[in-house]
């Protein structure tokens, strides 16, 4: 058997950041507090912004600097702040009254045990990896592995939204899926017109507001963040 050749330092570094995005996605399966879930999302978004800046520097694509800065500003700062502001007070009714808004518990909302969920998500991620790998799409700016990882991020975000039965994780799963798609965009269309990218980012802000509204309505009706109560609405 012959050895797999090492990628260049740039390609290796970019792949490591992309793997970090995927690992953050897996980390969302186990976060127990709403605050930590939002923080992990911010960290994941920060990794994508770093990757955008790295591509901009290495491949001389100046508009990616703007994109990196915009997505950092929006997804690392504004979205988490807006989420936490809007969700202030949610879930405090049953919880310890002294606990701050960030201490809302979302632990134990998985419908399978954590280890089984991770194994399931590994299988789903493997499907994404090899399905995209088989397509043989080559990107001029990033190693092909980044494309596989970006699709895996989106698929694992699906698993997160399916397996965790609390509305907060589902909203974060949706936003994280958007992160996966930004990564895909970075790989296949790094030279995409900036105006399109910016439009997507503002779409995201709309999604955050819509999710916040849904979470508030649900919390107002069911007095919890869990979606288990919705089951009895079946006809």
């Amino acid at each position: 058997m012959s050895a797999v050749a090492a990628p260049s330092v740039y390609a290796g570094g970019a792949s490591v950041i992309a793997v970090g995005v995927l690992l953050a996605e897996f980390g969302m399966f186990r976060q127990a507090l709403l605050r930590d879930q939002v923080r992990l999302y911010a960290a994941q978004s920060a990794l994508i912004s770093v990757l955008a800046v790295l591509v901009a520097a290495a491949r001389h694509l100046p508009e990616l600097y703007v994109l990196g800065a915009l997505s950092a500003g929006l997804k690392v700062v504004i979205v988490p702040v807006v989420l936490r502001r809007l969700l202030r007070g949610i879930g405090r009714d049953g919880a310890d009254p002294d606990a701050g808004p960030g201490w809302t518990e979302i632990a134990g909302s998985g419908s399978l045990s954590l280890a089984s969920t991770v194994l399931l998500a590994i299988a789903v991620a493997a499907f994404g990896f090899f399905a995209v790998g088989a397509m043989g799409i080559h990107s001029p700016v990033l190693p092909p592995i980044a494309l596989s990882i970006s699709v895996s991020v989106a698929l694992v975000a699906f698993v997160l939204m399916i397996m965790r039965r609390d509305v907060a994780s589902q909203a974060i799963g949706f936003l994280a899926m958007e992160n996966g798609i930004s990564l895909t965009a970075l790989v296949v269309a790094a030279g995409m017109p900036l105006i399109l990218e910016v439009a997507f980012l503002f779409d995201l802000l709309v999604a955050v507001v819509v999710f916040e509204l849904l979470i508030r309505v649900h919390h107002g009706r069911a007095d919890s963040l869990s979606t288990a109560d919705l089951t009895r609405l079946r006809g």
Partner: protein
Amino acid sequence: MSAALPIPVIQFLQVATVAVAAPGVSGVIARVEARMQGRRGPRLLQPYYDLAKLLRKEALAPEGASWVFLVAPLAAAACYLTVPLLIPVLTSYGLPLGYMGDILGGGFILALASFLVAVAALDTGSPYAQMGASRAKTFGAITEPVVLFVVFTVALVTGTDLPYALAATVRSSASQIVRPAHLLAAAALFMVILYETGRIPVETHTGTNEFGMIEEARPFEHSGPYFALLKWGSAMKQLILYTILLNVFVAPWGLAASTQAGAVVLAIVALLAKAAALGVVVAVIDNSFAKLRLFKITEFAAGAFLLAVLGVFTLYLGGG
């Protein structure tokens, strides 16, 4: 300037370094951990004093225990003394006996030692020792796949599964270090080492909390020189695993490239310094995380498995 050492002497020094330095590494970890908790902590040489005391004491065996109970500590120690022959402890070139076995071979010998200790624990009929043996084997079964995937990563990276080859590959260029497969495999191996050496977040290394014990509960019924051998053995296993992580994956620098006595002595010092540094990292982890509940250990193992599997995936797609 310095004389060249004969190869057999270097080969012997590999084993001797591990055997002699192993309790010291445990001493360093205990000391650093105590200091971080604001205690003075035991002397660095305390593990050696413990071993010396135990070796002088009388050995007792539980009623009904068979010869397995008494043979197991000796055989396990023999296993731990064999593994340093196979891995790059002091030299960057393979020593003659280093090609007796690959990474899997070393893993099998470590597994054999662990199996023997577990059988001896079962032989005692004591509930705590049996519980420890049963838990060690249960969780061993779920950390084993992680080790296998780490070995697959090594095999894909180097085209062989000799530890010397991977160490040489890592030293060869910076692009070998930043590749995701290498980082993921090293992280997964580190998590397995935390489990195998019975550290937080899997197990508390000190104290007498029997309910949380896994590895530590197994030698409960042994005493005197046999208990000393088991303690020494687990210290050797710790240093062997640290050596594999350091000299194969994370920091394969400072190894002797020649047979010069000076280079070999330098390699011993470098290995001890690296092991002590890793010990400090382990002590920091010990002090900053809580012990996982027993049934949460599967989550820890799942995390390690995730890292190892991703490492292989990235390699298969050619990007890692």
